[in-house]
């Protein structure tokens, strides 16, 4: 499982949130025996619980190997859009820009015309 759309695919939001809470609680590393029993019971209660927990745990574990990308986090220049949304927006934006320039050009011509008419 990787960082893709299949992580927790088809699993209800509520279960995803429960699984995330368990990962965070286990990550603290000081879970009591009674809480651990509750956790194991939750895990076996429903196949979807285990699916959500295992898939999110794997993604969570994978993020530990990210130290080399630290410079790319929390810096303003990395925050912008994904490549996909830039790609899908390219055409409408450039057409829009051209229209804006047309309007601007037309108004400029009218103004120039008025100036010359007055002269």
């Amino acid at each position, binding site marked *: 499982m990787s*960082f893709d*759309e299949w992580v927790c695919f088809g699993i209800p939001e509520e279960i995803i949130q429960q699984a995330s809470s368990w990962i965070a*609680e286990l*990550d603290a590393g000081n879970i009591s025996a009674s809480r651990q029993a509750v956790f194991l019971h939750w895990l076996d209660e429903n*196949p979807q619980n285990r699916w959500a927990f295992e898939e*999110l745990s794997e993604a969570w574990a994978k993020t530990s190997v990210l130290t080399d*990308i630290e410079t790319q986090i929390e810096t303003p220049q*990395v*925050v912008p859009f994904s490549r996909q949304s830039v790609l*899908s927006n390219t055409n409408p934006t450039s057409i829009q820009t051209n229209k804006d320039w047309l309007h601007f050009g037309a108004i400029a011509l009218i103004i120039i015309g008025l100036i010359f008419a007055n002269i």
Partner: protein
Amino acid sequence: MKSSTKPEDICLSAVIEKTSKPLKKALASLVPEAEIEEILQDSYLQLHLTARRESIANPVAFVHRTARNLAINRLRQKKTSERFVESHFANPEVNDQSEFKRLSLIREQQVLIDAINQLPPICRQVFVMRKLHGYSHKDISQRLSISTKTVENHLAKAIVKCRDYFVKQGADIGLISSAIEAA
């Protein structure tokens, strides 16, 4: 020498008894009804075959996991034809497998960076302190003057939000590939 009731058979029927009903219910949200039975049979078969080679600590977990993988593989395959068009257009020069793998790794890492960057500031800071700097929950709570429970809540929120972001990314790719196919 082989008796008619081998230990793994007994184990298998107990596992089937315990798992088939909840699995059917859970699989119903993933695949069409006609495929559920097939996936179940395949999962039990894999359990049976694997159990002959090695001991399986938790057969129920094994079956759950296998069924999920089989279902997701089917869903993935259904999307492959759309995705092929997209990847072919995106990387026409990529021929060898290792180069393709390298590019997917870079892409995967980029998605993760973007996912982390879209987290709310405090949530992102807690996440970075924990996962990149390796601070304990207690250290983080002291440095940010918040409770350890709040640290936990921020981390849980970060996991949910990153996952939401992966899903959104996947949907974007799907839209582009169907747009290319329609063109």
